[in-house]
């Protein structure tokens, strides 16, 4: 513990250096704007701004990009509450009760509860990260190929089980992503796979063009500017403070959201999105007044908003301790560090303590900055939403092109982005969630390599995954989740997804 406190002191001495604090502030500010603007989520935002960090050192780069990530979770709530437009996917659930509160004249209170809940969730996440990550990194050194395979398989199954779209659709998207991840040279044999004699495809398809195409351009193609005009409710500053009753109604949902979000964040998958959906379902179930959900229930704002921020921080645990990207966003962050010559994994804490602890400490600072930034400046952020969408989206397309081109100075990457944009449009049309595709792309090389290494180690015996304690535990959890999913699927019983969709449909009618 003493070592941790000493290391944290080192971290604060790094994070509070004026230049680093400035980049944390810049990241939080840009992240809030990314969260506020419809059509540009955290993944596209981070990917587009990745080239901006090329001139910074590794610590400043990761501090700024992480600020954009958790800043966008804060900002996403603003459009959800004031316009009923989720700035990004994890704010979808906040729309329901947040906007209902705004229509009742409680927009300020909803924003305040969302900001405070986000701060508590984020700060709790950082606290646990501080304590858990270093010992976990020590354990992670014992991870071999079978353990990595089992963990990634669990992540995919968990994502499929928890995803808001159907199980089959999620698995199809994950398969497509895994296949895309296999384009290029096979690291183990040197074979070119599906590269069609294009030298640029030899290194495979990068995550940035895919992410920016699916989430940035795809969203723009699906949003004609005529549909983007919405009424904006402007809260007054004096209405920002919730009443005592609203505080007491939000206390338990914030606590539950914090714990739930952090735990889900650790498991690979689109953690921040799943956590907010799940938190809403939990709050509705435990509430003494479930009929108030959809009509402005405070718990419907406090729970999901807290959970998505706690999950964003939780996702950094496997990233920093194991070097595993549990989401597309953390994969981009790994890419950013690798560009600066820092490899992420169990050795990070010992080899680059200034980066590791500086980053952890910057999250404490960043969460306070966001709380101070979001409440007083909410009306400023709302002003950004008044820019006509017709003028906004050409600018976003330009930034998409810059962001993708600058990573490798390759126009092939920009063409891939355009193709992915078209794919993203089609996927939205047919109700597919593109997030599992990107996750599949991210984990594909690690999963394939660890699976093949495991089979070579065991001379082709699949029992290797059940003969080592850590991989056995992870595989048993995967089998349990698959059994639960199969039970609902085969017997055609309504699982949690269906029940939630029915609940939402019911609310929409009332």
């Amino acid at each position, binding site marked *: 513990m003493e070592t941790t406190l000493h290391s944290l002191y080192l971290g604060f001495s790094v994070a509070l250096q004026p230049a680093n604090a400035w980049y944390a502030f810049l990241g939080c500010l840009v992240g809030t704007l990314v969260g506020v603007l419809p059509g540009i989520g955290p993944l596209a935002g981070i990917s587009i701004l990745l080239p*901006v960090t090329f001139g910074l050192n590794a610590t400043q780069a990761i501090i700024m990009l992480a600020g954009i990530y958790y800043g966008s979770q804060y900002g996403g709530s603003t459009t959800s509450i004031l316009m009923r437009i989720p700035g990004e996917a994890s704010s979808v659930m906040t729309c329901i009760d947040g906007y209902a509160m705004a229509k009742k004249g409680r927009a300020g209170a909803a924003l305040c509860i969302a900001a405070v809940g986000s701060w508590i969730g984020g700060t709790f996440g950082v606290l646990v990260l501080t304590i858990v990550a270093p010992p976990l990194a020590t354990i992670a050194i014992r991870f071999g190929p079978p353990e990595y395979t089992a963990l990634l398989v669990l992540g995919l199954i968990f994502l499929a089980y928890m995803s808001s779209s159907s199980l*089959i659709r999620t698995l*199809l998207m994950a398969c497509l992503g895994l296949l895309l991840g296999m384009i290029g040279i096979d690291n183990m044999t040197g*074979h070119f796979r599906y590269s069609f004699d294009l030298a640029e495809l030899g290194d495979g398809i990068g995550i940035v063009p895919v992410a920016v195409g699916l989430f940035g351009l795809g969203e723009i193609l699906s*949003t004609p500017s005529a549909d983007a005009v919405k009424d904006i409710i402007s809260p007054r500053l004096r209405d920002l403070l919730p009443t005592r009753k609203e505080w007491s109604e939000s206390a338990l949902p914030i606590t539950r959201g914090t714990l739930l979000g952090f735990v889900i964040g650790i498991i690979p998958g689109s953690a921040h999105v799943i956590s907010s959906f799940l938190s809403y379902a939990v709050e509705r179930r435990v509430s003494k007044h479930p009929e108030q959900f959809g009509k402005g229930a405070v718990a419907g704002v406090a729970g999901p908003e807290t959970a998505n921020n706690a999950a964003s921080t939780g996702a950094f645990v496997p990233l920093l301790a194991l070097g595993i990207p549990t989401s597309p966003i953390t994969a981009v962050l790994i890419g950013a560090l690798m560009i600066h010559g820092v490899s992420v994994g169990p050795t990070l804490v010992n080899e680059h303590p200034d980066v590791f602890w500086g980053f952890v400490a910057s999250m404490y600072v960043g969460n306070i900055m966001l709380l101070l930034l979001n409440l007083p400046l909410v009306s400023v952020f709302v002003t950004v939403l008044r820019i006509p969408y017709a003028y906004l989206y*050409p600018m976003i*397309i*330009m930034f998409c092109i810059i962001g993708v081109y600058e990573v490798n100075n390759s*126009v092939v990457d920009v063409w891939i982005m*355009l193709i992915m944009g078209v794919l993203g449009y089609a996927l939205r049309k047919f109700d597919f969630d593109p997030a599992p595709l990107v996750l599949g792309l991210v984990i594909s090389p690690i999963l394939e390599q660890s699976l093949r290494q495991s089979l070579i180690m065991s001379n082709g015996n699949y029992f290797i995954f059940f003969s080592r304690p850590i991989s056995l535990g992870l595989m048993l959890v995967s089998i349990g989740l698959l059994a639960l999913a199969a039970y609902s699927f085969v017997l055609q019983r309504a699982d949690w997804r269906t029940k939630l969709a029915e609940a939402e449909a019911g609310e929409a009618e009332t």
Partner: protein
Amino acid sequence: MTLRADHVEGAFFVGFGLLVFALSGDLPTGSLSLPGSGFMPKILAALMVFFGLVLALRASESKEFATLSWSDAKHAAMVIAITAAAIGLFERLGFVTTNVLMMFALLTIIERRRLLPAAIYSVAVVGTTYILFVYVLKTPLEAGPLGF
């Protein structure tokens, strides 16, 4: 039989899986004890065909294909066409010229904005971005024949 969205989606993924199989013909599958470079892609292609079939077989729960709204398709097609033209010209004309032309085209052709405000907006946004990246952030952008 009514054609439903999941029939189309299922057929697409079955077709895609089969295409991956066809393209993987020359990749060695290897053995369980020494998997080759075609091992994982073929497993995934098989899974994709299987899940595609399940999706198509359970299509009765999905909406009718004819009821899907394509009202935004024209907007999407025009944005794709203009962006594709911009990407094609990007390395020849450079960052500034290409993006000014792209934004101007998006604003005037798709959004029907007046020419002068659209031109001023395009030049101002692209110019500011160029200065920000090249001079403030020291990140070079693709130069055209005029040097910017």
